[in-house]
């Protein structure tokens, strides 16, 4: 097998192993209901993690996404409350706003030659601040179209519900896989992650690619915000605090190198589902306290990073030999 596939294989193996352990203890974990809920509950995280994967593949980081999701929810809720616009039109407006926002951050990163960490940190403050300025309260969304979206699901055998937002998440992952692994833009992203100087020598247009990367992440954050607003039927400026770090953790567990240049969008989906599975297990168990979730996710993170380190060393040794 191609050594580059090892991290992905390890991620999938650990996910399956974890599921087997869960099923042995609670046979009901195998039901389609659990699967359906796993997809629905983690839909917004999965979508935003796709954008984060592309950013991290390019060697960057985007700290603004959690705030952008919160802003999206508030934006939608306030627009639906104060104007008579149709939700679909509001969605389109929102996606334009968040994509432009991401593109602006990418432009600043390239033009100012400043680290993405600090530029997107400013973006994080700005998006959250903009959400506060729209409203400081939780605004409920009460619209017939939203009820329709909320109730849209396919009843799987075994009475599990494959909800609309779960399907949107799976489709986004598929789209992300195509963008990252099958397009010229994706190749530029990988090249940039391998090193800016080499990418430039290869003829990658650094500026344009950087803008597109962060615009893509902004688009994903906006989409995730839409899904989150359907999931919660409200907009709240304090929602999804820290989601950017959960997304980064999911990307790392999914086998993508944080230094950039190596990884898989599909792995990120497995990373998100692994974290969701741990949470589900703790709910099923009932006696474990919620803080064990955090500790176990931290340990998983460590395990995956050490695994990647080890694999890198093995492949480096093999390359020398």
């Amino acid at each position: 097998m191609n050594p580059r596939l090892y991290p992905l294989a390890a991620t999938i193996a650990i996910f399956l192993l974890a599921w087997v352990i869960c099923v042995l203890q609670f046979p009901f974990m195998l039901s389609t209901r659990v699967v359906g809920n796993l997809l629905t509950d983690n839909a917004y995280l999965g979508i935003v993690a796709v954008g984060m994967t592309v950013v991290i593949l390019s060697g960057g980081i985007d700290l603004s996404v959690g705030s952008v999701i919160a802003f999206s929810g508030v934006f939608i809720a306030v627009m639906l409350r104060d104007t008579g616009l149709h939700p679909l039109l509001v969605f389109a407006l929102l996606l334009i706003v968040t994509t432009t926002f991401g593109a602006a951050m990418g432009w600043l990163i390239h033009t100012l030659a400043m680290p993405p960490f600090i530029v997107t940190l400013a973006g994080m403050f700005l998006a959250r601040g903009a959400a506060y300025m729209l409203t400081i309260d939780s605004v409920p969304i009460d619209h017939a179209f939203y009820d329709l979206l909320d109730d849209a699901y396919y009843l799987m055998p075994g009475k599990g519900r494959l909800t609309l937002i779960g399907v949107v998440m799976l489709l986004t992952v598929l789209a992300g896989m195509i963008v990252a692994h099958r397009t010229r833009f994706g190749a530029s992203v990988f090249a940039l992650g391998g090193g800016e100087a080499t990418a430039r020598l290869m003829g990658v247009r650094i500026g344009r690619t950087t803008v597109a990367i962060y615009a893509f992440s902004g688009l994903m954050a906006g989409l995730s915000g839409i899904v989150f607003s359907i999931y919660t039927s409200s907009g709240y400026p304090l929602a999804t605090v820290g989601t950017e770090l959960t997304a980064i953790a999911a990307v790392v567990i999914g086998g993508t190198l944080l230094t950039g240049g190596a990884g898989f969008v599909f792995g990120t989906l497995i990373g998100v589902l692994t974290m969701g599975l741990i949470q589900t297990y703790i709910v099923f168990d009932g006696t474990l306290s919620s803080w064990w979730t955090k500790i176990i996710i931290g340990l998983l993170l460590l395990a995956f990073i050490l695994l990647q380190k080890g694999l890198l060393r093995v492949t480096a040794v093999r390359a020398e030999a």
Partner: protein
Amino acid sequence: MTALRRVTPQLLTLAALVALITVFFPDFLRIELVNGRLVGPVMDILKRGAPVGLLAVGMTLVIATRGIDLSVGTTMAITGAVAAWTITQGYGLAPALALALLAGVAAGLWNGMLVAVVGIQAIVATLILMTSGRGIAQLVTEGRILTFSHDGLAFFGSGALLAIPAPALLWLATAIGVALLMRRTALGMLTEAVGVNRAASALAGVNATVLLIAVYVASGLCAALAGIVATADIRGADANNAGLWLELDAILAVVIGGNSLLGGRFSIAASVLGALIIQTVDTGILLAGFPSEYNLVIKAGLVLIILVVQSPNLALHWYALRRAIRSRRETALASAKETG
């Protein structure tokens, strides 16, 4: 003199902010002596700025080595929980402080080992403790908010010495102490050397591994002090909210202080001024009567301005522009001489 020139932009920013707030809130600079202690908005800023100020001292050193420490907010929660737990178990003040500081050292050692020995990127290595640390803090407090009534520990949050609030004193003493340690010995220069190029400094005889671990331990210790202040302030340990997102404020303070995230030269005084600027904005917005919703947007604007000012690209453009103007003027002069 050069030290003063280094912090001039920060001092100017602070002065401009103070002037701006005074326009909206004339009593801003007033300080009174009430019940044997100084009170006033300025003292309030010095006191409330203590956690971020303490964190910024440690964070400056970490960033100087081209690292970053995302775990300091969580370390605050852990050390605060440890201090509160020790007090509620009836062990007294000295063991509580010692155990809290020890917890900070342990957190720093863990981060330092991952970065320096295992060789994990700092941002990921410290992310591990950041995500799991609140779980550890909740483990200590058993998921509750551990409250205590112990005047000795509460002194670090609300006490006063020589009419100055204790947190402010602790913060200033730490900053001055660490700055002296770094600048009166070679430690500061060695730290910068590791930040500029770890491999080269190791070849030049700097024990880069030990120095890197020491830097993260220093950051853990600063976080422990901040955790003690935060816990003492509310007389309780809140594992969920103590130090929440303060790591970002601390990083922001360091960046406002003009320190590069790419490592190398650092100034603790400038970082501490950065922390003061952040706290002045926070307090000033409230005093000036603006809704606190504007706080984050103003912070974002501030960061953006600082980014533009610091940008290496723009500096290069500026330099090229000045040189072009000068050379044009010289050629104009030369041609004027020839014709004249």
